[in-house]
């Protein structure tokens, strides 16, 4: 026979005003298995908890009910008290007689609150009789993190994790870390140079002994779960021995072949053996294999001849490396929507129609023009420039429905840079609305208009075409209600921020969610902004959606703090509310596997003594299971149950109804 104690709380007068707590206690005392009852003014107070502990010991209780407020309030408190008195905490259950009884059924004379309290407590008592002692799940944590993406968000996350004393592998697809920010000229609203604030961080990441850079590498496979991930990284062949290369650059000098530079967005050329930009980290060149005549046709090899330390190896192959890690930060960033989609703006057909990012390169002192604004077609300094905002953004038909958020600000910055560099030049901006929410952002845009003379026109552009060597921009000015036609020397398109190609593939490898634009989903948009539904995987930066540098950096740090909190103990304790499979009855239909939102269910082979697979059964991974119980209801053979909410417990409560 169980020995159950029932503690009815008066909650001052909050419960007692409409519920006869004494009667509830008395009635419960009549039930079989209940050996102790009481009602008390404040069960959650220290004396109340002491009383509870003492009652457990004195009456040798093996389970208890506290009929009080919502379990969302004090379930933890009472379970802790029960644990302190030597009881398994999950043998303590709460009945909610405040939010569900006294506070919503006001008339004491009708005794509705009391009747309901008695019913609910009785149901909980019967449920409790079926409770099993549960133990918190302890998961060992490997204290090493993998950060995917070496842009500013990823660098920040890596630096912060390393600062917190943990090891980090920073995986970057390109030959250098730095990401999109490395391309920018100046940054709004302070106008400090992007390279000047970014490169020190890149170098810091390289020199930090706890950070290992895996550049020119991509994540190929992710296995495991929180605290215990196995990440397989493809380290693409650089054809240059990273260890021995001194970064002298002789090889680049001597390479006779040039191709379009992806980093410079086609505005200039680079050698076939190259670093993306002069300040690359690591400063180790890679060979662009498809374009290298030595690798393709065994001709040339000039780079290997001039290389002092002899670190060029044309036979190098991709390597797969596996990393054991406790947490993963995803910071894969963004790209711009292809401009070619917008035929009306003439991109690709008219040479001097360029993208905003190309303008950044023109304005950058390390860019192809050394920071002078010169148009691509003939190198002339443009005397008038038209900036078109919302190219693809807020355009459900041809682009994306969302606002790309950063374009209003960088376009204002472009007009400023242009007016500073080309005196007497006139800039025009076609906009839909100016969205300049942010510290000192609105002032920045006002400055562009009032001090730097940018002409802002509210309206869309319908067509861009060439006429007599000029670029004609035809559009509407909705404020004056007229059509305008502007002769420009150059046109700059503020193209939408979109997710990276392959963002969906990576998400599937990681088991994290993404939206219809393939931006990654945070666990909760407000309260868990850097977590994902997969425990142990965190997000930072523009892989989640458009955001500016300060936000990306803040998220990098936020993700790092989550990682460090996880790494602060050797083991992670989790609520034991997880599913468990009855292996004898499971018939491997895998309905649970398809129902599970967390990929927490695996296939397990049952083998005989010779090691032959006899049959397959489902197995729940406690590290991944979140305890929703969807699998339980999906199971046809009733072979899965949810600890803490077993069928037996629920039926016991229903039967006591």
């Amino acid at each position, binding site marked *: 026979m169980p020995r159950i104690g029932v503690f009815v709380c008066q909650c001052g007068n909050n419960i007692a005003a409409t519920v006869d707590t004494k009667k509830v206690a008395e*009635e419960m005392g009549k039930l079989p298995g209940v050996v102790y009852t009481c009602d008390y003014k404040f069960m959650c107070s220290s004396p109340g908890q002491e009383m509870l502990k003492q009652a457990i010991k004195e009456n040798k209780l093996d389970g208890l009910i506290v009929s009080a407020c*919502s*379990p*969302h309030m004090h379930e933890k408190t009472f379970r802790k008290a029960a644990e302190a008195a030597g009881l398994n905490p999950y043998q303590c259950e709460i009945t*909610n007689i*405040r*939010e*569900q*009884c006294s*506070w*919503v*059924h*006001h008339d004491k004379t*009708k*005794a*509705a*609150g009391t*009747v*309901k309290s*008695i*019913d*609910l407590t*009785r*149901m909980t008592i*019967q449920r409790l009789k079926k409770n099993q002692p549960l133990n918190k799940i302890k998961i060992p944590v490997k204290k090493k993190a993998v950060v995917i993406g070496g842009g500013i968000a990823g660098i920040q996350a890596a630096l912060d994790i390393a600062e917190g004393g943990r090891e980090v592998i920073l995986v970057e697809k390109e030959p250098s870390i730095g990401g999109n920010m490395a391309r920018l000229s100046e940054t709004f609203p302070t106008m400090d140079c992007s390279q000047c604030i970014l490169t020190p961080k890149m170098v810091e990441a390289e020199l930090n002994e706890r950070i290992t850079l895996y550049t020119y590498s991509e994540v190929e496979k992710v296995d495991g779960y929180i605290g215990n991930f196995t990440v397989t990284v493809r380290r693409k062949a650089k054809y240059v021995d990273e260890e021995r290369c001194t970064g002298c650059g002789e090889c680049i000098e001597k390479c006779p072949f040039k191709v379009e530079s992806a980093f410079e967005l086609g505005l200039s050329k680079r050698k076939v053996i190259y670093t993306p930009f002069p300040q690359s980290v690591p400063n180790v060149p890679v060979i662009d294999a498809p374009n290298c005549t030595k690798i393709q046709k065994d001709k040339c090899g000039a780079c290997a001849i001039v290389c002092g330390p002899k670190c060029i190896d044309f036979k190098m192959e991709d390597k797969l490396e596996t990393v054991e890690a406790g947490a993963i930060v995803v910071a894969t960033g963004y790209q711009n929507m292809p401009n070619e989609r917008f035929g009306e703006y003439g991109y690709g057909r008219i040479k001097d129609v360029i993208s905003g990012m190309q303008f950044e390169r023109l304005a950058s002192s390390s860019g192809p023009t050394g920071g002078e604004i010169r148009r691509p077609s003939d190198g002339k300094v443009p005397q008038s420039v038209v900036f078109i905002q919302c190219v693809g953004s807020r355009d459900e038909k041809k682009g994306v429905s969302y606002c790309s958020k950063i374009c209003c600000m960088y376009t204002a910055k472009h007009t400023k840079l242009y007016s500073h560099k080309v005196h007497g030049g006139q800039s025009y901006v076609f906009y839909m609305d100016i969205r300049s929410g942010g510290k000192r952002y609105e002032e920045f845009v006002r400055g562009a208009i009032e001090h730097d003379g940018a002409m802002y026109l509210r309206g869309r552009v319908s067509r861009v075409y060439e006429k007599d060597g000029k670029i004609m921009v035809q559009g509407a000015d909705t404020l004056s209600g007229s059509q305008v036609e502007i002769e420009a020397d150059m046109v700059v398109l503020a193209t939408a921020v979109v997710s990276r190609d392959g963002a969906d593939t990576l998400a599937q490898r990681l088991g994290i*969610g993404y939206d219809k634009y393939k931006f990654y989903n945070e666990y909760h948009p407000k309260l868990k902004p850097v977590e994902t*539904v997969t425990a142990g995987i965190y997000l930072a930066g523009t892989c989640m959606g458009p955001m500016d540098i300060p936000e990306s950096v803040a998220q990098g740090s936020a993700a790092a703090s989550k990682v460090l909190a996880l790494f602060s103990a050797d083991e992670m304790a989790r609520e034991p*509310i997880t599913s468990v499979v009855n292996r004898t009855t499971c018939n491997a239909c895998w309905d649970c596997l398809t*129902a599970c*939102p*967390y990929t927490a269910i695996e296939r397990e082979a049952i083998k005989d003594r010779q090691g032959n697979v006899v049959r397959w059964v489902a197995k729940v991974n406690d590290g991944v299971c*979140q*305890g*929703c*119980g*969807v699998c*339980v*209801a*999906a199971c046809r053979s009733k072979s899965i149950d*949810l600890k803490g*909410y077993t*069928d037996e417990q*629920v*039926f016991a*409560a*229903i*039967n*006591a*109804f």
Partner: protein
Amino acid sequence: MSGHTEHTTPTGGYEPKIMAFVCNWCTYAGADLAGTSRMEYRPNVRIIKLPCTGRIDPLFIIKAFENGADGVLVSGCHPGDCHYTTGNYHARRRWIGFKNLMEFAGIDMRRLHFSWVSASEAIKWVDLINKVTDEIKALGPFMEYKGLKEKSAEQGE
């Protein structure tokens, strides 16, 4: 093991018994909010909390009727808001099939309700309980099913 309360109030009128299966994150919290906001509603409902509506086995509902419920209510997070991302979609899909079966079996569908109540929708919760209670009260005790249960119990034992 059956309940102590009868189908009558102290004043003698008929009061239905209603069982509610709700999820922990949205509807249970919504009901809590109704409490902290001191809203008044009909006292006929008895809540059983589950982590997610996706956990709800149709057998729970049948069992509730078997134990004398005059009506059953299922409520969870709104579509898209599930704490477990997709649990409520599973619940909804299961519900559609189950509802057809219950209709086929001749259960009056006014005794069985499915709803979405979020953690902030205390008012919706209160309105829902009042509406469901009044509707079931008007229908009267669920005698048809009660009879069936007794009959099957006789045959079984």
